[in-house]
């Protein structure tokens, strides 16, 4: 289990170096995006319009934080990952139109995403529900885009330091920890049913 210390922008070579199961800490810029932000990203990309941020320069974080405004500055007080599976149908469309992408979320993503990530991206898992802990790695909220989507769905720009530990759930070579667990779980389920 190798440990990686990433700093954004994450280059393709670094993406390809990460293996499923490795531990990762992120420093630099993370940008939150949930369902509504993904839908809007796709609209922009389809129109050939420039996004307010470059996907390749940041880490996309499946997260809807709690933000407070103090003396004209934003602060994230709780900001753990949201269920990434909701972005399953949207992520391949984004990946098609970008050069590379590092994502952080929780709960895993499906085989369509595994295929779309090949040679261009990784999916990292952060502990589900650890919102207070995650917020401690966020040093600054640099801004917000698409605030009309509401606080959870807006795109928040975080400056983070040693955000982690994240586990590489899906690597750029088609390996998925979730596929492995799923296989074991299905086998165990059959075993449970066969018992009296």
């Amino acid at each position, binding site marked *: 289990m190798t440990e990686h210390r990433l700093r954004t922008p994450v280059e393709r070579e670094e993406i390809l170096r990460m293996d499923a*199961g490795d531990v990762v800490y992120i420093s630099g810029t993370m940008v939150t995006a949930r369902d*509504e932000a993904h839908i809007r990203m796709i609209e922009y990309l389809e129109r050939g319009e420039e996004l307010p941020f470059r996907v390749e320069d940041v880490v996309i974080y499946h*997260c*809807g*934080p*709690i933000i*407070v405004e103090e003396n004209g500055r934003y602060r994230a*007080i*709780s*900001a*753990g990952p*949201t*269920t990434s*599976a909701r972005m399953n149908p949207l992520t391949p469309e984004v990946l098609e139109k970008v050069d590379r992408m590092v994502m952080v979320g*929780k*709960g*895993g993503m499906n085989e369509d995403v595994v295929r779309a990530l090949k040679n261009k991206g990784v999916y990292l*898992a952060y*502990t*589900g*529900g*650890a*919102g*207070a*802990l*995650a*917020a*401690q790695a966020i040093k600054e909220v640099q801004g917000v885009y698409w605030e009309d*989507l*509401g*606080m*959870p*769905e807006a795109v928040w720009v975080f400056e983070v330091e040693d955000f982690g*530990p994240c*586990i590489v*759930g899906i690597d750029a070579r088609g390996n998925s*920890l*979730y596929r*492995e*667990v*799923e296989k*074991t*779980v*299905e086998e*165990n*389920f059959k*075993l*449970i*049913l066969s018992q009296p």
Partner: protein
Amino acid sequence: MVTRDDVIETVVSLFKKAHTELPDDVINGLRKAYEREDGVAKSILKALLDNIDASRTLKVPMCQDTGIPIVFIELGRDLCINFDLKDAIIEGVKRATKEVPLRPNAVHPITRKNPGTNVGLHIPQIDIDLVEGDRMKITVMPKGAGSENVSSLKMLLPSEVSKIERFIIEAVKNARGKPCPPIIVGVGIGSTFDGSAKLAKKALLRNIDSMNEFELNVLEKINSLGIGPSGLGGKTTALAVLAEMGYCHTASLPVAVNIQCWANRRASAVLR
């Protein structure tokens, strides 16, 4: 004498408590899980326990998904109230949203427009039960969407009593890592379509150490699935299975499985 202000203040302080102080039974369950796990599962449970400490110390919500506000009221029949109770609860939720603060989660189901207050048509969800006595018990339960989204309900046939267990385990299996395991599994058996769902939700208010033989047996099977903390494999998929029953029509057997993430946030207070 219970006043409108008492109810508002209590609702605000209960949401604050629920979001920053996980009940002891759940913390103990997570600690025990931490002891028996190793590898990735152990490191995830360590992060959860650190997160719970950080939340309590910094007084910030343990999870950014502060849920949809659900409020249970047990109203003593001898207690006289001369104000609009529901309106006071709604006011309490609005204030809690600003003061805790809570993430504004409640949106219109079609337009997805967010009023920013956690208040809207039928939200907060308020459940009022009339009981004996002269007291009012207020319980708040913020319910996150990751776990709610993988909950399940099925109208089984009366001849399928032996399939109840399978349905519960299958719901957990299909949910895998999505609901932030280790989870707590609320089950409602019997009643009606909606009644079974309500029983499953109310089961989640129970202490997780209060499991009977049936519940412990289902828990053991669920934990042999191997989903593990955060769905990355391990021995601890669930901390508890809590089932409630109600009589049902002779022609039906509703079963509801309401899944709750590890952040089994609940807080109660009694007013009189």
